[in-house]
């Protein structure tokens, strides 16, 4: 008999259904992946399994866990199952942990409520669990508040709180979406290592995550389960149209065509730029340390790195949105002043920006047509209102949006449509450089592809140069000519797209590439190549800033900071870059355990 049996599950709010007749089962100890785009009903289904849907949800059908009906069960009965036999991990551990309670209290309360342990016994069990999820100084983490932990550590705490009772079924809803890619790899490893015979229901939009880790897959679309089957056969021969689409849209770093390099003529260059912030307590934080690079005409330069790498601070600096503490900018052969207030209209017009979250980047009180036409009021004063409007309409059709949308407001648009409006607003000024700061990070597969197509076709048509900031190397692989990799405010490697993905020279780049789950069940799963997380920029490590996590570290790395130098077609800031291509990596246990 199955551990979990779902049949005819239907969830609706005020008459409109979000999950519409779903049947599936999970056996003891099985790992099942649930994939689909946002709004496909996968998270709603997961919440229904625990009886956690809001009061206004109408739930029909049957969810049986170990023979017990969940739907309509009284709260006391559910509370005996929740946390003990079925546990759940949520997407964003910052939101999912209580910021007002110490970590130890949040975990021991679970034991206390289920009468598994109290007092010193509970404390001991919690400390053991914290150690098991890889938190080195368990005593200290026990006393910590969630905001004192890094994102990865928080998710480890979440996992500890879910597994501390030894549940039969673990539901993980996008457990790594809010994390950096090297940390994601660690968390996925940890889940696999700790779950033993606990059945796993892993919900994700990322096919790479489930490809190597789940035995079976359930594919959701529009509230329905459109396909299910063994992972290998589903990847090899998808039967449903939507599964095929999802597979095609999955970005891959292991395959891809290389764009022809752009002409070597610099449009914008950044020389020795540094950006420094002051914390509330007056401590100096070096967000960007002495970065030099140049953007060529008509190319897309990707800047990649994990959170805290300084990639956003760098472009904010070059756009004049934050003050640079040193360095200079050259645009089209002439010096460009730092602060945005000091720039000429012509300069402002030439550099345009697209943000990550399109909905908050658009004024909710303005129609789409007004939003797109607005920049012309400043930059093309001579033209009439009707001329502005017709240019805006033209721009909308260029980004693939229907003219009818011009009377809509931003909340009436999908995420992808809103982002194309933001791009239209930037492109209407015919800029020379477009800066996209995580512009597709908030979008699902097909919407993401269409936004990328819009950027690519604008580039082909007008010779636009693009700075493309992203944490997603799969996307970077498909859109960029060159790739710059940043770590802790430094540029560690920059190379042509094909060169960087084929032969990454810096150990951090290698680890970054190896961390990305490949959407192919036949590909070998690589265990997390890096331990720990990015150190604080308030106290960057001495010498090479990467040395605390580097598998190839030697004494010289701890003593002196490497400069960028040419290594076989790449520019790399690593003392050992030439030697490590064939070197064996030290196992993580030999690494200095900086902070885990």
């Amino acid at each position: 008999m199955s551990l979990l049996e779902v049949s005819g599950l239907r969830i609706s709010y005020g008459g409109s259904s979000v999950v519409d007749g779903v049947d599936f089962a999970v056996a003891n100890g099985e790992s099942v992946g649930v994939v689909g785009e946002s709004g496909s009903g996968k998270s709603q289904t997961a919440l229904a399994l625990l009886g956690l849907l809001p009061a206004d949800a109408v739930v029909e059908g049957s969810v049986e866990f170990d023979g017990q009906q969940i739907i309509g069960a009284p709260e006391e009965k559910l509370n005996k199952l929740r946390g003990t036999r079925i546990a759940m991990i949520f997407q964003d551990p910052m939101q999912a942990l209580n910021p007002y309670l110490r970590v130890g209290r949040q975990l021991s309360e679970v034991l206390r409520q289920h009468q598994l342990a109290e007092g010193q016994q509970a404390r001991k069990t919690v400390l053991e669990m914290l150690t098991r999820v890889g938190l080195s100084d368990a005593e200290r983490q026990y006393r910590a508040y969630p905001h004192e932990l890094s994102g990865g550590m928080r998710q480890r705490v979440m996992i500890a709180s879910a597994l501390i009772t030894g549940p039969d079924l673990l539901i993980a809803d996008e457990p790594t979406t809010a994390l950096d890619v090297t940390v994601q790899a660690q968390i996925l490893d940890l889940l696999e290592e700790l779950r033993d015979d606990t059945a796993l229901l892993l919900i994700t939009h990322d096919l790479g995550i489930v490809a190597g880790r789940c035995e079976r897959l359930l594919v959701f679309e529009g509230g329905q389960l459109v396909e299910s089957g063994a992972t290998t056969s589903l990847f090899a021969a998808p039967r449903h149209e939507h599964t095929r689409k999802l597979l095609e849209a999955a970005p891959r770093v292991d395959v891809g065509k290389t764009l022809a390099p752009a002409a070597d003529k610099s449009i914008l260059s950044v020389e020795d730029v540094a950006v420094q912030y002051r914390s509330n307590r007056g401590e100096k934080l070096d967000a960007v340390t002495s970065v030099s690079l140049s953007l060529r005409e008509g190319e897309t330069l990707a800047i990649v790195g994990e959170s805290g790498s300084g990639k956003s601070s760098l472009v904010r600096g070059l756009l004049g949105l934050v003050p640079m503490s040193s360095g200079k900018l050259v645009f089209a052969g002439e010096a460009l002043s730092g602060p945005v207030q000091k720039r000429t209209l012509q300069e402002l017009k030439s550099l345009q920006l697209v943000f990550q979250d399109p909905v908050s980047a658009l004024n909710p009180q303005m129609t789409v047509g007004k939003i797109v036409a607005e920049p012309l009021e400043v930059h093309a004063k001579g033209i009439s209102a009707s001329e502005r409007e017709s240019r805006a309409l033209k721009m909308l059709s260029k980004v693939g949006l229907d003219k009818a949308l011009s009377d809509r407001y931003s909340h009436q648009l999908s995420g992808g449509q809103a982002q194309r409006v933001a791009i239209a607003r930037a492109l209407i000024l015919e800029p020379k450089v477009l800066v996209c700061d995580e512009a597709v990070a908030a979008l699902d597969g097909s919407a993401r592809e269409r936004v990328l197509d819009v950027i690519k076709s604008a580039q082909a048509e007008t010779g636009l140069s693009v700075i493309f900031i992203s944490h997603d190397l799969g996307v970077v692989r498909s859109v960029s000519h060159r790739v710059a990799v940043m770590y802790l405010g430094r540029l560690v490697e920059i190379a042509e797209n094909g060169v960087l993905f084929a032969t990454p020279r810096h150990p951090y780049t290698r680890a970054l590439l190896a961390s990305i789950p490949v959407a192919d069940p036949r590909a070998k799963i690589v265990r997390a190549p890096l331990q720990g997380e990015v150190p604080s920029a308030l106290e960057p490590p001495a010498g090479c800033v990467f040395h605390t996590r580097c598998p190839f570290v030697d004494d010289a790395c701890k003593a002196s900071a490497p400069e960028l130098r040419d290594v076989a077609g790449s520019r790399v800031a690593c003392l050992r870059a030439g030697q490590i291509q064939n070197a064996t990596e030290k196992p993580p246990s030999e690494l200095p355990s900086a902070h885990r």
Partner: protein
Amino acid sequence: MLRYTLLRLLGAIPTLLLVIVLAFLMVHAAPGGPFDSERALPPEVAEDIEKHYRLDEPLPQQLLRYMSGLLQGDLGPSYRYRDYTVSELIASGFPLSLQIGALAMGLALIVGVGAGTLAAQRKNTLVDRIVMGFAMTGISIPVFVVAPVLVLLVAVKLHWLPAGWSGSPGFAKYVLPVITLALPQIAYIARLTRASMIDVLSRDYIRTAYAQGLGTKAIIRVHALKPAMLPVLSYMGPAVAAVLTGSVVIEEVFGIPGLGQFFVRGALNRDYTLVLGIVIFYATLIVLLNLIVDILYGVIDPRVRQR
């Protein structure tokens, strides 16, 4: 923390200075003086008294003299209660006002938070509507209406409780004034608690707690109460001050010899130093209360503590 407290106290000095100057000018701007009575004094006597209390000096000079006294902790002599200094009068009246105020605030917190939490849990049900209905009534009806009505009903008609203060035995005489004073506070706190509790209960970490199998009671006690109390805490600074000053009316109605009575009499009699002294006392109290609230904020919210 110590540094923060000191900085805040330093920052309060300009506020207090402004309060002192304004209060001083307003008291003196009011028509009449401390020694005017129905029968006018002979001019030479009035002149003598004015000279004695230095009321004949120009106003700025009087202000300076008063301020220099303040620096030495001297609030001056009362003009009407001869032989008493203002400090002595405050010391005799304030303990009783504080007692009644503290009892009322304690009652308001317990009932208000309880009712607000209940209403939040039963959002949009009959229970919620009844609680919120009572709260709205409590806010709308002023103390000077509630107090006499309660006295008439409970004390005069039903004889359950004493109506006045002097001569009534023991604890019974506290009941009506404390309840009257607490009512509007109960109403405010219940509304605040309900709103913030509803907000907190919709957070992801509450969903996590449900997923961990904690029942609603445990969730409210362990996870929700602390964050839901933050808005109530912010309100406590002004509320405690309001309860202490609100007792002016209560003390008059119930005949309680607290600070409020001195304040009212002082104002009616143009007892300049007494009114000023009490205003400054209250202002200092409010500044201190707000500081305590801010410090408590850090105790509840660990993220504030770091800043």
